[in-house]
């Protein structure tokens, strides 16, 4: 069974195995197909039209399925690898071991934002950025530049306390847990972390930065924690709703999986700790 661990508790060998599997996925070209898929959904999900991956109730089950697919691709390379998660309420500075050269590498240099050390530095020759909107072929970051502070645990708690999963109009204007977690309203959790990292993470092609998976693994874990706190709450809308994925509707691009199929993560993986 796959166990997703806090990135801060990974051993040196676990970090190396994760990085090596990601680099191998990149070499074969499969990694970039995940970037392309994500950007296609970012650009087509609109508040008043069809919306599946973002700004809609299915933001959470869509990314859960997307991460499972990515994790399975890594496990085809190394069956021992699981996606780690980044608890940015705790590891909230550039000094975190997450950004060390033996894991994801640090922030970008001042001149051009280029990440110049670690396994994903372009100089290593193994991380060309090709699915991009601006032709710059190197990984960029500006940690803490776009916004000064990552969300705090108290801010996370205030969102976990919301009992209703989502509300009409089921988009970026909604009240409820999903939209506050996504960050279009309120204290802003998920969106703010993308902005804090900067570089490609702030763009539609955000999976170009491997931290994308660690960020979304933590968002996914917060969904599981919300479920544990609100056992009588569930995914909404339950009924078929225009432009939106209801509980039993299939999600693009897979077309064979519904939000209902994604509610119980323990069928696919567990977390190292429950709370």
């Amino acid at each position, binding site marked *: 069974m796959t166990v997703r661990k806090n990135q801060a508790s990974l051993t040196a060998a676990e970090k190396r195995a994760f990085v090596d599997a990601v680099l191998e996925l990149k070499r074969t070209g499969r990694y970039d197909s995940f970037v392309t898929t994500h950007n296609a959904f970012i*650009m087509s999900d609109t508040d*008043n039209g069809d919306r599946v991956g973002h700004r809609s109730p299915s933001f959470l089950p869509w990314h859960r399925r997307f991460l499972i697919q990515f994790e399975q691709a890594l496990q085809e390379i190394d069956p021992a690898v699981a996606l780690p998660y980044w608890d940015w309420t705790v590891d909230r500075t550039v000094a975190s071991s997450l950004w060390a050269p033996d894991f994801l590498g640090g922030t970008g240099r001042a001149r051009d934002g280029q990440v110049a050390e670690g396994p994903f530095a372009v100089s290593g020759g193994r991380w060309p950025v090709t699915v*991009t*909107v601006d*032709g710059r072929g190197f990984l960029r970051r500006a940690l803490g530049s776009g916004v000064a502070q990552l969300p705090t645990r108290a801010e996370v708690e205030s969102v976990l306390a919301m009992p209703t999963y989502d509300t009409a109009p089921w988009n970026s*204007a909604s009240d409820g847990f999903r939209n506050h977690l996504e960050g*279009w309203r309120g204290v802003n959790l*998920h969106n703010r972390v993308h*902005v804090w990292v900067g570089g490609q993470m702030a763009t*539609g092609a955000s999976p170009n930065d491997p931290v994308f998976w660690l960020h979304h693994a933590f968002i996914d874990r917060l969904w599981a924690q919300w479920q544990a706190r609100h056992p009588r709450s569930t995914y909404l809308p339950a009924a078929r709703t225009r432009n939106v994925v209801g509980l039993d509707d299939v999600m693009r691009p897979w077309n064979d999986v519904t939000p209902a199929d994604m509610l119980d993560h323990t069928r696919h993986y567990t977390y190292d700790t429950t709370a």
Partner: protein
Amino acid sequence: MSRITRRHALGAAAATALTSLALAGLARTAGATSARRATGHQPPEGHAGHDGPQPFSETFQGRRIEGAPSHADGHHGGYAVRIDGEELHVMRNADSTWVSVINHYETFTTPRAVARAAVIELQGARLVPLA
């Protein structure tokens, strides 16, 4: 990949011609919008409509940024933004704020603000169409 390669192969003259075409396109769509307004036509759901932002054109940090209402397919929010003639994918949120593909997790009050933020983020790099 092939698109980028092809674009890089295009000469400067071709790039200039593309920019001119893009500008003509902007002017056409802006004109069409004026006609719609004159007849009181209601724009389709999800488009900027009568309360949409006005066109703009300026040089910001050495880049030409332009915006104008558009009703062509793919212009979410019914508004097109260009940087040095290349389209910047923008989207209008339900609360009337804006995002672009360059700053997709941060909202801006106007298309001009989203264009300026993209210029800063690009640090001189060209926009390349992705989709």
